[in-house]
């Protein structure tokens, strides 16, 4: 095992996959010469050339759309939108084309597309750089949506995404790139993958199930550690993959704990957590001993001021408060 950062995990995944698959190309602003605004694509242009690692103009609708077209015609493109907020600019091509070309065109088109969307809030980057739009893609049939956070999952999932014939929206938490974790080295490191639709139980527990993903899974784990000291035993599930979503693992856990808290970093309204809670109720209303509790950002555009920003972003304390709430039978 080697301990590497999320940044390195992504970079390694690209290096290894681009080496064995010459149809993988990349498009995005500053990804070539500069190696990416977050340094994810360092060296890739040197290794695989300007035809495969393409510095684009700031033309998201066109380069995202170009990736859709390239995917339909034999390549495996990766589009990087610098901040996931700007995926809005490529939304038409993604929603109206990428997600449904195969379906509309009688199953004759493949769409092996990966869109890398650095998301999440924090650091005072305010209303246009802090948003989390995963629920939008969850809403549209045709996408796969993933949000791994541990380097092991990030690397393995990126490889799965690169090999998949469907459009995958790959949410990377922009404050996770320095996060370190164990990843297999040697041959295993180059060959392992992480499948879609399989969640990981990060911590076992008996009192409350905490369902989370991306940075919220990290925060949930920390909250669970603190709660354990108070005698509250939480089971923490990192979903890793949002669409498809591993409801078997979620329901198994709820069968044990009968209480669930679902966390997202996005604005609470209309988010993944609401959708997940609905599905939990559909599948196992009788398993619940308390109303499920959701954790998410306040329903406001992200303010710039740090104090206000802190109030908005769901942190460990908010997860703990949700656990107290779900345990309170008042």
């Amino acid at each position, binding site marked *: 095992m080697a301990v590497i950062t999320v940044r390195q995990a992504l970079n390694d995944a690209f290096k290894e996959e681009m080496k064995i698959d010459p149809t993988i190309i990349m498009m995005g602003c500053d990804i070539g010469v500069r190696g990416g605004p977050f340094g994810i694509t360092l060296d890739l242009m040197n290794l695989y050339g300007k035809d495969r690692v393409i510095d684009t103009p700031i033309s998201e609708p066109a380069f995202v759309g170009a990736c859709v077209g390239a995917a339909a015609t034999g390549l495996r493109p990766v589009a990087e939108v610098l901040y996931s907020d700007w995926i809005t600019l490529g939304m038409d091509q993604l929603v109206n084309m990428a997600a449904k070309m195969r379906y509309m065109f009688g199953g004759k088109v493949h769409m092996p597309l990966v869109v890398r969307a650095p998301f999440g809030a924090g650091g005072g980057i305010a209303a246009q750089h802090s948003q989390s739009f995963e629920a939008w893609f969850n809403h549209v049939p045709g996408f796969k949506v993933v949000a791994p956070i541990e380097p092991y999952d990030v690397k393995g999932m990126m490889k799965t995404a690169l090999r998949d014939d469907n459009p995958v929206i790959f949410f990377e938490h922009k404050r996770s790139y320095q996060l370190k974790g164990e990843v297999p080295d040697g041959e295993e490191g180059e060959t392992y993958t992480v499948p879609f639709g399989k969640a990981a139980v990060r911590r076992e527990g008996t009192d409350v199930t905490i369902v989370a993903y991306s940075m919220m899974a990290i925060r949930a784990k920390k909250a669970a550690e603190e709660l354990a000291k108070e005698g509250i035993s939480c089971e923490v599930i990192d979903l890793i993959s949002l669409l498809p979503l591993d409801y078997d693992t979620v329901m198994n856990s709820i069968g044990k704990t*009968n209480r669930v808290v679902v966390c997202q970093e996005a604005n609470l309204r209309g988010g993944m957590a609401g959708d997940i809670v609905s599905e939990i109720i559909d599948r196992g*209303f*009788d398993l*619940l*001993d*308390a109303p499920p509790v959701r954790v998410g950002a306040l329903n406001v555009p992200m303010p710039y001021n740090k104090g206000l920003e802190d109030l908005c972003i769901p942190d460990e304390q908010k997860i703990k408060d949700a656990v107290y709430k779900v345990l309170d*039978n*008042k």
Partner: protein
Amino acid sequence: MARKMALPKIGVNMTEAVIAKWLVKPGDTVNEGDPIIEAETDKSTQEIYATEGGIVAKLLADEGETVECYTDIMVLIDEGEEYKEEEEAPVKAEEPKAEEPKVQAAPPAAPAPVPAQAAAPAPAGARVRVSPLAKKIARENGIDFHIVPPAVPGGRIVKNDVLNFLANGGGAAPGAGENLDVIPMSPMRKIIAARMTQSTLEKPCVGLVTTADATALLALRKKYKEKGIKVSMDAILAKMAAKALTIHRNINTVLEGNDLLVKRDVNVGVAVDTEKGLMVPVVKNADQKSLLEVSENLSAMVEDAQASRLSADNMGGGTFTITNLGMFGVEEFGPIINPPECCILGVGALKKEFVPDENEKPKLTTTFKMNLVFDHRIVDGAPAARFLKTLKEFVEMPELLI
């Protein structure tokens, strides 16, 4: 002035209603007589009307909730008035906090164990909050979750509350733990149960059975059918019973205290099997209606009953009831009288049999049995038998109806 409107009782036997749907919401203006609730009562699903007008300030009962009659269900205010929650506070105010004990408590008592029985079960009629899991466990153990006390007074009943309750021997109902489903009685089922029990306990009953030749009756039906008119056996019998009741008015009688109330209206009920249970639409003044009128009237009400929309008006006030299990091949049965009526007629299945004709020769005839159960407090055997005889004559010679 803010005032509360209570759930009105709209049927003689209605004790409670399940609020299926609110038809008004806070802010709406209602006039007396406006529909405000779609309710499931002992009769069926029906609209309940406002007993006074005003602006709806607050609804006091949730949809799905069972509310006893005369329980407050909403708050009304006047135009231009503002409703303040506190106005109702004095009623619901918590008990005054106990004074701090003047004497220092002697040695600190051991902390109370998690109170298994600390809180009382919720008072009847109050909304009980219960987790889906607790509800399921209670159901599986054959106990009514309403009687389980939550650990937190006034709090939600959860899994542990039910388990503690069971562990302490609480409510081990018959059948607990057995492989069966426990279904709480619907309001309608409860009413049926109460009335049947009342009837059985109060009424000394005698059953009189006779066999009637159905040939003429079937011929009559056939004639109508040829004209494209569908007339049911029940409708014909209802009309005939009505006619017979006008002749034998002592049968069209109810007992109230020490008085025999001989009814002038002849209202014949016909038992109908519906998804929700037994219902009895009543053909009012059936004696004054033609056979076709009775038939149309009855079939419309049967349809309403099947669709749970039979109005209370069409269910009350019966003076005689007919119940027919012939379609299930039942030849003869003794039904329970629908109180406060005097009689009920149980109609059996049509049956082909050889009957000696006037020449003592066997003749294949269609017959059926009629079982008249009567309340011996009201009439004796002979008058009841006379009524049955008249009815039998009508069945065998429908032309007598004219």
